C-alpha cells in the first residue's frame, strides 16, 4: 500500500501532497465490503450449497441431493409444487396490484404536499405517520376493522364483504392496507426529489409559455426520473417480499391463496426445517426478481 501511494506521488508535481493511491478506493470500500461479504455474499453462496442438500442444521445426515430440490418445484407430483406456485402466484398478484398504486399515488400526494399552503408540515407528517407503525400493529388493527362480520368497515359501508377471508376482497384489503401504510415513505422520497429540481427550470418553462400540465410533463417528471427509478425498484422488491400482512391479516385464507412466497418459504425452512428446499425456492424467487429488476432498469434507460 505504501509503495502504491509513493508511486502515485511520484507521477505528480512535487508540490502536490499525495491524496490517494490506487488502493484508496478499495480501502474506503473495505468496511462495507467486509460486512457485505460476511453477511450477504457468503450466506448467499452458502445458500446454493444448502439448496443442493436435504438440509436441517440439527441433523447429522444432510444428504447431497443434487438438483432434486429444484426439480421438485417443477414436478406437479411433488409435495411442494402446488403450494409453491400458488404462493408465487400470490406474490405476483400482490406485486402487480400494489406497485402501480404505490408508485402513482405517492407522486400525486407529493405534488399536493409540495405546494405551499397552511398546515403543510402537519399534513406531511400526517401522511407519513402510518409508516412508523410496525407491521404487526398495522395488520392487527386492520384485521379487526376489516373483520367480515364484526368489523367497522363493513358496518360503515352497510355490506358484508369478507375482506380477510374471500377473494378478490382479500387482495383489495392487502393492497389497500399496504398502500395506506407505506404511501408516506414513497411520498417523502418524491418530495425530496421535487425539492431538488432547480427553480429556474420552472421559470424557463413559464417564459416559454408552459401551463401547469406542461410544467409537470416536461420539468417535474424528467427531473424525478432517478428518484422514480429508485421508488419503482424498491417498491417492487418490497412488494415481492411481502410477508407480515398476509401472515397476520388473512393467515393465507382462503385455503392458502393469499400465502405469499416468502411466507411459504419461511414455513418450509423454519417451521418444517426443510432448509434445502426453502433455499431452492428462495433462489427461484431471487431469479424472478432479478429478471423483473433488469426489465425495470431497461425501461427507465430507454426513456432517458
Amino acid at each position, binding site marked *: 500500500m505504501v509503495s502504491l501511494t509513493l508511486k502515485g506521488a511520484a507521477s505528480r508535481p512535487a508540490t502536490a501532497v499525495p491524496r490517494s493511491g490506487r488502493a484508496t478506493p478499495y480501502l474506503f470500500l473495505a468496511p462495507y465490503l467486509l460486512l457485505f461479504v460476511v453477511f450477504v455474499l457468503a450466506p448467499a453462496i452458502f445458500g446454493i450449497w444448502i439448496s443442493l442438500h436435504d438440509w436441517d442444521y*440439527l441433523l447429522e445426515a444432510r444428504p447431497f441431493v443434487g438438483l432434486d430440490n429444484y426439480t421438485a418445484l417443477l414436478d406437479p407430483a411433488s409435495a411442494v409444487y*402446488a403450494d409453491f406456485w400458488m404462493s408465487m402466484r400470490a406474490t405476483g398478484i400482490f406485486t402487480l396490484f400494489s406497485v402501480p398504486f404505490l408508485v402513482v399515488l405517492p407522486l400525486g400526494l407529493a405534488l399536493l404536499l409540495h405546494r405551499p399552503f397552511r398546515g403543510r408540515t402537519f399534513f406531511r407528517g400526517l401522511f407519513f405517520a402510518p409508516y412508523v407503525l410496525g407491521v404487526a400493529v398495522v395488520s392487527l388493527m386492520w384485521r379487526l376493522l*376489516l*373483520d367480515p362480520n*364484526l368489523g367497522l368497515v363493513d358496518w360503515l359501508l352497510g355490506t358484508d364483504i369478507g375482506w380477510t*377471508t374471500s377473494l378478490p376482497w382479500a387482495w383489495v384489503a392487502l393492497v389497500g392496507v399496504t398502500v395506506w401504510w407505506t404511501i408516506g415513505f414513497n411520498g417523502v422520497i418524491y418530495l425530496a426529489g421535487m425539492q431538488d429540481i432547480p427553480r429556474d427550470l420552472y421559470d424557463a418553462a413559464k417564459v416559454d409559455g408552459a401551463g401547469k400540465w406542461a410544467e409537470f410533463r416536461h420539468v417535474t417528471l424528467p427531473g424525478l426520473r432517478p428518484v422514480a427509478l429508485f421508488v419503482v425498484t424498491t417498491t417492487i422488491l418490497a412488494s415481492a417480499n411481502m410477508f407480515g400482512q398476509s401472515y397476520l391479516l388473512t393467515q393465507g*385464507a382462503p*385455503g392458502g391463496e393469499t400465502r405469499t412466497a416468502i411466507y411459504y418459504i419461511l414455513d418450509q425452512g423454519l417451521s418444517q426445517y426443510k432448509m434445502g428446499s426453502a433455499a431452492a425456492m428462495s433462489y427461484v424467487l431471487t431469479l424472478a426478481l432479478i429478471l423483473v429488476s433488469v426489465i425495470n432498469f431497461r425501461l427507465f434507460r430507454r426513456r432517458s
Partner: protein
Amino acid sequence: MSLESLTRRRALGLGLGLGATVLAGCGGGGGPKQAAQQSSGPATAAPTSYTGPTVSLAFWNGFTGGDGPFMKRLVEQFNSAHPNIKITMNVYQWSDYYAKVPAAVSAGRGPDLGIMHVDSVATNAARQVVLPLDDVATSLSLTEADFSPPVWQAGVYKGARYSIPLDVHPLGMFYNRTVLSKAGLDPDNPPKTGEEYLAALEALKKAGVQGHWATPFPFTGSMQFGSLLHQYGGRLFADDAGVSRFAEEPGVQALTWLVELVNKGYSPKNVGQDADFIALQNGKAAFNWNGIWSINTLREHKDLEWGVAPLPQIGTEPAAWAGSHQFVIFKQRRPDQNKLTAAKVFINWISGHSIEWAKAGQVPARKTIRESAEFKELKEQAAIGSQIDHLYFLPPVAGIGDASAVVDQAVNAAILLKKSPKDALTEAAAKADKVLEQNRKKYGA
C-alpha cells in the same frame, strides 16, 4: 421393561448416541460416546432433594399470556424453598421459542430445561434438541398410572420418553348464558348430544342468533374438526403416521357437519380470526368451542354470564382435541450432573404443585392432583377436565406438525365454501402423504 434395555435399544436403534446417553447412568454400553459420558455419575440420585453446590438453571417457555404470572409465582416459590437451586425463567412467544431453542442448543447456549407442546416433542427429539428422560420418570417413580395413558404415551418417541407432562389443555364448549336464556334455552343444562345441539342452534336461529360461528382458522377450527373426526370414530393419521386418514368417511362427516353450520345459517359466512370468540363475548354467538385457556380471559369480563361444558357428543363416541405442555430437558455441550439432578427436583416439585398451575386455566396432568378436592373446586377447569379419558393427541412422530398443517388449509378452504369437504380433504390427504413420506426419509422411519 428395565431402564437398561430401554437405554440400549434407544442407543442402538436410533444411533442417537449423543443426547440419548447423557442421562444414562446404568446402561450397558451402547457405543463409544455413551461409554465416555457414563463417568459423569449415576443419574439415579434422589429426585426429591438436591444437596450439591448451588446451581442456577435457565428455564424457557412461551407462557406470554395470563398463564405467565402463575408460572412465575411457582418458580419464585420453588426458589425460596430450595436455596441451592436458582431457576431463572425466560418467556418468549411460542413461535419464536421453537425457532430460538434449537438454534441456542446447537450453539451450545441452550437453556437447561423448558416446556414444549406435546406435538413438538417428537420432532425435537429427532433433531436432538431434547434429552431422553426415561431415568427421570424412573427416579421420580412416575408411570402411566400417575397421568392418563394418552398424555403419558404422547411423550414417547421411538421407545424412549422425552417429556414429562405438566398439563393438558382440552377444547371445551363455552357458552353465553344470557344468549341461551334469551332464546328460551336452559343455561344450566347446555346441550350434550348432537341432536340437542342442533335443536339449540335452531332455537337460537329463530331468536335471531347465529349460535356457533364456524371459524375456518386453525385456532380453533382445525381443533373442532379433529374433535368431530374422532367423535365419528376416525383418526387424523395412522398410528405410526405412515399415511393420513383424515380424508376417510369420519373426516368427511366431521367437516361436512361444520360446513353445514354455515349452510344452515347457524354460523355466518367468512368468520374472521378470533371473531368466533369475540362473538361469544359480545352476545352475537351462543357457543364457542375453545381451549381451556379461555377461562381467564372470560373471567376478566365482569358482566359476562358464561359457562363451560364438555364438547357435545356429535358423533358416535365422545372425543375432544387437547394440547399438553410437557417438561423437557435440553441437550448441553457439557452435561452437568448437578444441574440434571436439580432439574429433576424442579420438574417433580412443579408437577406436585400443579394445582396452582391449574388456576391459570389448565388441567393438571398428574392424576392425584386432577382428582383432588381442590381441583374439583375449580368448577370450569374440572368441567373441561372431565373429558380426560377422551382426548386425542397426534401420533408422536417427528415432523407430524408439517402434515397437520396441511389439514389446516383443507379446513380453511371448506369452511370458507371454496371447496367441498370431500374434495378439500382428498386433495390435502394426497399432499399430507407426500409430506409424511418426505419426513420418513428425513428423520428415518
